């Protein structure tokens, strides 16, 4: 564990240095930019609250991807599941008008169910027709994108506005804010704990993890791989759908707005990858990526570096952390093999000395 943390920190360090070099090469004041990046994301109460709000969808999409990849379900459909979850909550919130204590749990259920349903399509196609889920989920992303775009620019368009968006949902589904911190963050923390318990502390999660490492082993060991595949896909989709739902229920807009998916879903995929599908690392990287994204706004304000630099920095971090992890493992394996070879050679020499034969004959 500490070895992993060490290589991850080394990777992050190298990636941040690479980012520094990119900024410097483009003529920006590199060090002040980084100072702004971190002071606007970590070093004030407002900054921390913004970072936690930003982390809300990232934790959920990260968990979604980690559950999927960790059980060997290549669910790349987070963007679609996110949008469908958000749209379902928006529709529910417009149609129903209930008091908050009833409506909020119901809306959360709707988000989970909608995301699971969209992932379920791909899971069903895989189980019934053996179609690769990584392509079907990717294609379903585009279908979800165009479908929600149709809804917000056609039947569900709020005619009082100029750009495509739905009407605002009824206030019963709005999550409360405390000092700027949305309760959506609490929801994502609860989801994190529940997912962690399932993944790391339950028999089901154990079966998924074994399936992710070696599906033949889990089948021989008596697990029902097919059913487990579907279950993992559904949980993965539900988490991505919840991320979408949180964007409607939390925040300020309380409606489905064009482009609200932003890059949250793909960020989640990157977070899971860089966290090697572990639940706790996923949560930590989600916070770290949220800090980068929040800080990038401040960086743009202070040193005029476009805030999109955050996207570049994240991709570089993923590459370097994964590379440092893999190459240290390679290096350690090689060292271990060398040591073992030397030990074996030494033992051989001892034996040959004992036998009185010439050991230099190879």
């Amino acid at each position, binding site marked *: 564990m500490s070895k992993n943390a060490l290589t991850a920190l080394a990777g992050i360090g190298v990636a941040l240095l690479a980012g520094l070099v990119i900024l410097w090469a*483009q003529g920006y004041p590199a060090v002040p930019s980084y100072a702004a990046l971190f002071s606007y994301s970590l070093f004030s109460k407002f900054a921390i609250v913004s970072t936690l709000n930003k982390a809300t969808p990232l934790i959920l999409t990260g968990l979604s991807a980690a559950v999927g990849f960790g059980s060997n379900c290549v669910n790349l459909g987070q963007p679609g599941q996110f949008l469908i979850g958000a749209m379902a909550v928006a529709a529910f919130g417009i149609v129903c008008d209930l008091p908050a204590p009833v409506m909020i749990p119901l809306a959360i259920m709707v988000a989970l169910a909608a995301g699971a349903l969209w992932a379920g399509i791909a899971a069903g196609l895989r189980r019934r027709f053996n179609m690769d889920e990584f*392509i079907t989920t990717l294609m379903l992303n585009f279908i979800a994108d165009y479908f929600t775009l149709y809804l917000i620019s056609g039947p569900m368009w709020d005619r009082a506005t100029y750009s495509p968006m739905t009407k605002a949902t009824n206030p019963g589904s709005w999550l409360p804010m405390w000092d700027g911190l949305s309760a959506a963050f609490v929801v994502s923390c609860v989801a994190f704990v529940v997912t962690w318990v399932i993944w790391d502390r339950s028999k089901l999660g154990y079966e998924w993890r074994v399936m992710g490492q070696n599906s033949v082993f889990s089948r021989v060991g008596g697990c029902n791989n097919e059913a487990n595949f579907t279950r993992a896909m559904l949980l993965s989709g539900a988490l991505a759908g919840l991320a979408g739902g949180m964007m409607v229920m939390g925040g300020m807009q309380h409606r489905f707005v064009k482009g609200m998916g932003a890059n949250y879903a*793909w960020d989640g995929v990157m977070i899971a990858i860089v966290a090697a599908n572990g639940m706790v690392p996923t949560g930590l990287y989600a916070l770290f990526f949220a800090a980068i994204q929040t800080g990038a706004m401040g960086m743009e304000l202070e040193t005029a570096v476009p805030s999109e630099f955050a996207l570049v920095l994240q991709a570089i971090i993923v*590459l370097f952390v994964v590379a440092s992890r893999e190459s240290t493992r390679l290096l350690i394996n090689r060292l271990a093999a060398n040591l073992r070879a030397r030990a074996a050679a030494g033992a051989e020499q001892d034996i040959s000395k004992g036998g009185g034969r010439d050991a230099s004959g190879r």
Partner: protein
Amino acid sequence: MHLVVEMLRSSVLAATPVLLAGLGGTYTYYANVFNIAMEGMMLIGAFTAVAGSYLAGSWVVGMLAGMAGGLVAALVFAVFAVYLKTDEFVTGTAINMLGLGGTTYALRQMFRVKGAFMSPRIQAIPRIRIPLIGTLPGIGPVLSGHPFLVYVTLALAILIEWHIFRTRYGLRLRASGEDPRAVDSVGVSSDRIRAQAILISGALCGLAGVYLSLGYVTLFAENMSNGRGWIALAVIILTRGRPLGLLTMSLVFGFFDGLGLSLQSTKIPPQFTQMVPYIATIAALYLYSREKRQAPSAPTGPTGSSEQAGQ
């Protein structure tokens, strides 16, 4: 009749980027590299092509810059996946994100715009009329007068079929995918061949990007590859990596893409017509899986298909 010709023409136009990326992906398919990065390499190529064409005022520079963009992305992929032994899926996803984020960032950093960049100073790829083709009965009007990359792509499909199945290099490429140790044991580095395959796919995906931003339209928009790299990956799986099969499947895909465009004049909402190519891809995968189930012993994956190819 005129409508049919128009639809077929738009099929050819829409098929070209998928075919170009798919041809690149054929190399990595046979080298047994899971190349999910085609989408990102295409997007980077599209951006550097527009940047090159705009800054130099010449489409030749734009085209070279686009290929170079794809190559650089592929170089990163190759260094990480082949030499540092990172997971291909992970590296590919990171390259895609780097493509999406990097081009969005560069769009703002270089041209100070968000969303899309267009300018009369971007020089597009010329359209040409090949003398004989235009006069052919039937297919003449369909094939004539496209951006010249369309013809390059058609020629490449035939050339690559030959290169992969009829040359020593192609044999080594397929062997590195099937059994890298066997290739290493005769003194040819399988790592080097796999890296070369990734670089070739990068150059061709870059060229697909050039076609998108300087041929299909003359502008760069955020995420303008819009899933074509992934569709190309699906098409490679569907055709088991045969370049000529790729040509056919890309035309089918192009037909559905074009169908979506022609349906826009009807009452159907445009968002639904834009879904058509993605639904068509899922439908094609369904048909493929049914065919595979009926012949359960049929070989799958690069190993099986190169056995077929050897016949």
